[in-house]
């Protein structure tokens, strides 16, 4: 992907990005902070304005497009940060997860990391304080608690096995 940057003296800067099928996206950043987004169906065509936005709005849109905003993990971390270093985190168990069908005791959760599974949500039902013999089923949501680094360890441990929600 190539991005062409052009100076527009007295106006601002222009960025041209090749997108699909020979179309181009043209973004003009005005010195005033205003952004305009244009689309060219092909490089020869006249640019058609898609939308314009203020500096602040553009930054919000930009971070949404970038994925920096509203990313589930981020939100979970933020929403479940407890006082101190403690984090509450939850993961959904997919049918092909290695965890599925194992009891908590059999699975490597306790050995691989020091997090505690405090609850399992199974459909409408909540299993609180599950014991070592509680079996994990596909579709379960495991609610785990631990320090930030412990939860991160758990995340790497189960990364290939469960899908984060």
């Amino acid at each position: 992907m190539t991005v062409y940057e052009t100076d527009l003296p007295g106006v601002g800067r222009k960025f041209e990005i090749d997108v699909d099928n020979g179309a181009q996206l043209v973004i003009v950043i005005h010195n005033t902070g205003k952004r305009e987004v244009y689309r060219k169906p092909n490089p020869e065509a006249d640019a058609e304005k898609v939308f314009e936005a203020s500096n602040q709005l553009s930054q919000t849109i930009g971070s949404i497009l970038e994925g920096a905003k509203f990313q589930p993990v981020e939100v979970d971390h933020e929403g479940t940060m407890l006082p101190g270093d403690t984090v509450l985190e939850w993961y959904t168990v997919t049918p092909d997860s290695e965890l599925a069908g194992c009891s908590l005791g059999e699975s490597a959760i306790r050995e691989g990391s020091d997090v505690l599974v405090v609850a399992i949500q199974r459909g409408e039902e909540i299993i609180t304080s599950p014991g070592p013999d509680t079996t994990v089923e596909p579709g379960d949501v495991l609610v785990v608690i631990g320090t930030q680094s412990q939860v991160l360890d758990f995340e790497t441990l189960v990364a290939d096995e469960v899908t984060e929600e």
Partner: protein
Amino acid sequence: MAGETALLELGLLFAAVGLVGALAARIDQSVIPFYILAGMVLNPFVAGRVAPISLETTPFVELGAEVGIVLLLLFLGLEFNLDRLLADRARISAAGAIDFAINFGVGLLLGYVLFRAVLPAFLIAGAVYISSSAIISKSLIDLGWIANDEASPILGTLVAEDLLIALYLVVASAMLAGGSDLAGTVQSMGVAVGFMLGLLVVVHYGTPVFEALLETNSREFLVLRALGLVVPIAGLGLLLGVSEAVAAFFVGMAVSATGHVSRLETLLEPVRDVFAAIFFFWIGLVTDPLLLGEVLGLIVLAVFLTTPTKLASGYLAGRIYGLNVRRSTRVALGMTTRGEFTLIIAALALSGAGGVLSTGLAETIYAFAVGYVLVMSVLGTTLMQYATPIENAVSRRFA
């Protein structure tokens, strides 16, 4: 306090520009000719002849117009970036050189044939050469051309013009200030060049000082300090017989190297627009339409000569930037508008009246420039609006 009607008169000025500005926006035209016409309609030559009241130029309006010129040139300096110019120097200088050679050349020829003297020819040449950065940039944005390839040659040529007009104003001011003999001109040129060199040193080494001077979180202080910086320096320039406009341009260049430039632009833009409106209104206020009638032939001649020359230089600029026939035609149409800088040259000519330039000649050149801008600003804006059918016709024929 001011005279009993002074505030009311100033109020009428603002009411008039507010009203005609709305009208101009409604019909997608530039505000500049409308501000001029508003001033012209309300002045003693028109309203004074047919209506019980008319507006006369006051020292306040004159000073306001002067500040308008200073701020217009300050912005030119703020947005002028030497590094960017150098980065694209091959294309910009080629397009700029063709633009200058064709348009300034024709202006010089026209002026000399009509007036048989160097100074008036030089003034006419400047007036017809310089395109309007303000109107053209705004039209580019309004029409969405800014996102197209034609934006680069248009804006590039305008940058070259900005630099040349700064040099031009120095020479023109010196020629007007100098006596009728060569020695006087040389002496005032010396003062001008000395002042410019001084300013260049200030621009080069002064950036940290300007940086510190403008360092404040208060918007109020920033605006006041910027005005406190540019207006005195411009005033000093005027006092020394150097163009106040050029002094302001250099201050703008110096400030553009600081980190305050974008904030300053945002805050000063409305201030500039207020004073620029006063400037355009003042232009109309001191213009007798009858005088305009006397130079009508000259205006028509200039329009018929210099519209094609701008079209030609604009087209060539497009070709230099590697654009096809259609887009080069669009560049041509985009460059024809003349505006604020032609009027600054007009004001400069008027200020030289009675000195090197006879009053009659100064008034003729002034009236010519005003009438010429009235035609070219409307014509240029209109050509840009109706660019598509014109491009179609041209590309069918030549591409």
